């Protein structure tokens, strides 16, 4: 990666006595789309919020364009936010019901580009609405007048109006129907081609595959696999990643249904005192997994996995327990 936009190192977040993010490190390059996958409760959304300093991590660093966001002053943080925007999961809940769509999208401009006069602002808002596939006449309407997919576009328009360097998308398409999902994904691809980087959080692996350059797999507050997108789907290394892939329902009945990918439920983080957090669900478990926690090792160029058996060739079919 030649230009690193975001550098996260050993990030830790606690909720009271619960360790929710247990040491996460990764880089994200300019114009790169990185997918972040994992089950609910794995800490995906918490990681997004910690990067944006919407909650305070207990340890680690988040460098964005060379500035450590966790240590900088509120004033500097505010300036950084201009380049760092987020689109939330629930489109309707993340819009103020009493503001027109135009006011919502114009608000970041009022804060960061106070030199603009009202008509220039309006023009920018109108252009942005068109870019996300809505019409500029809609700017006078309120969020409740729009469908879920349209509200999601409004959230994107608000995030995009300042031309951020990095957009964090937290389960952005989960609530949308397939036909609309494609439109939103294609919009993201257009924006990426214009130079924006994306951290795309989703549990929908098929969407992540189509969109991402690289994928991060998270389990119980840690990254267990980092890989280029094609490598991850073609030859996943971590048993948890294999389980996730096996659980994706196949589309043709002839292929048969998905094998139960990872049996059991995610463990409770507090119960992991030593060893690998995935060991209770892992079909490849060894005695050493009980006691020693596997480090994130590079198994192929750019492909990292945290598994004691990552250097073995494991037969994927034996996963069906």
């Amino acid at each position, binding site marked *: 990666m030649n230009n690193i936009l975001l550098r996260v190192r050993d990030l830790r977040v606690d909720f009271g006595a619960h360790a929710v993010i247990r040491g996460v490190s990764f880089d994200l390059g300019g114009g790169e789309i990185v997918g972040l996958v994992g*089950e609910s409760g794995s800490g995906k959304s918490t990681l997004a919020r910690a990067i944006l300093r919407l909650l305070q991590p207990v340890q680690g660093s988040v460098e964005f364009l060379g500035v450590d966001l966790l240590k900088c002053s509120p004033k500097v943080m505010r300036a950084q936010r201009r380049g760092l925007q987020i689109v939330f999961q629930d489109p309707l809940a993340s819009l103020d019901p009493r503001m027109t769509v135009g006011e919502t999208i114009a608000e970041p401009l009022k804060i960061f580009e106070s030199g603009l006069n009202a008509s220039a602002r309006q023009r920018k808002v109108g252009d942005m609405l068109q870019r996300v596939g809505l019409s500029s006449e809609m700017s006078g309407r309120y969020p409740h007048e729009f469908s879920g997919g349209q509200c999601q576009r409004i959230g994107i328009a608000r995030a995009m109006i300042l031309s951020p360097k990095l957009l964090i998308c937290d389960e952005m398409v989960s609530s949308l*129907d*397939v036909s609309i999902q494609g439109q939103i994904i294609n919009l993201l691809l257009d924006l990426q081609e214009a130079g924006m980087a994306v951290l795309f959080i989703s549990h929908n692996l098929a969407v992540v595959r189509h969109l991402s350059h690289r994928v991060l797999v998270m389990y119980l507050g840690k990254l267990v696999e980092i890989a280029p997108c094609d490598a991850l789907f073609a030859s996943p290394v971590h048993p948890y990643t294999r389980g996730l892939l096996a659980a994706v329902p*196949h589309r043709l009945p*002839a292929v048969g249904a998905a*094998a139960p990918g*990872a049996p059991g439920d995610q463990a409770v983080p507090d119960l992991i005192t030593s060893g690998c957090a995935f060991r209770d669900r892992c079909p490849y478990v060894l005695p050493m997994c009980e006691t020693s926690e596997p480090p994130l090792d590079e198994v192929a160029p750019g492909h990292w996995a945290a598994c004691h058996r990552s250097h073995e060739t494991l037969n994927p079919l034996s996963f069906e327990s």
Partner: protein
Amino acid sequence: MVPTLSVDRLRVSFSHRSGSIEAVDRVSLQIVPAECVGIVGESGSGKTQIFMAAMGLLAGKAQVSGSVRFEGNELLSVDRPTLNRVRGSKLTMIFQDPMTSLTPHLTVGTQLAEVTVTHLGMPWKDARTFAGRMLERVHVPEPKRRLNQYPHELSGGMRQRVMIAMSLLCEPSLVIADEPTTALDMTTQAQIIELLRAVRGEFGMALVLISHDLAVVAGLADRILVMYAGSVVENAIAEELFKHPRHPYTAELLKCMPSVTGPRLDRLPTLAGQPPRPGEILEACPFAPRCSRAADRCRVERPQLEGSSTSQAACHFPLTS
């Protein structure tokens, strides 16, 4: 053979200040014993409302006409006590969100036992034992302990297993599962689909699987009904539907589904436009405004479901294989 469920020209409409909204528009369908039928469609297509009508769970202001017969007996005009004998025992429903469909202040054991106490007149003590055995049959670990737990103490997947156990207590003839895996993680979703497949084999009931996700339905359903704007546009044997979709909408939906296999595309295919508001198009093909094959006839004459016994489409110009 008497069909398990027979819906004939069902109409469900809601009056609205801008006129009447036809949520379900003259839908007819039949479900035979032990059959698994998938109902797919985007949000607002009316797929849930058909079965809410059957269960007598429609909102008070809904206007219903047509007929819904369960094992030969009309459900729409039936009195409340008769309906209450059928629903929850022989005709049961599993909802999307098991947290809100279980009562938060009663233990799992009490909620399960109540079903057989009410419908079968079992003494409470026996009903609890029976409930524990049913939990075991749906692979809930430590069933005895679960009986004393409250819904919030269980994971999402476990709660959905409890809902499935509840739906099976009185040996139903038909279970309606409405988006049973939508609120769950990918790995849990695969487990629940497997469980539904297993209980179908074990209990031999008919199963309706409602989902917005064709992939979820694909592995389980014998037959799939595709809904669009309140009506059934295609009704086909599952394999046939995936291999040779006949309605252009079905074909578009299949194209829009991103997959974890096959080539990665530059852009995802999309379906332009929005579905019509329910009731907006009554005398033409509701898909015509978005259809690439639409001709003049489609804009004036509503197509009826036609075709062979394995595949029918409501289209004047169906796709041929």
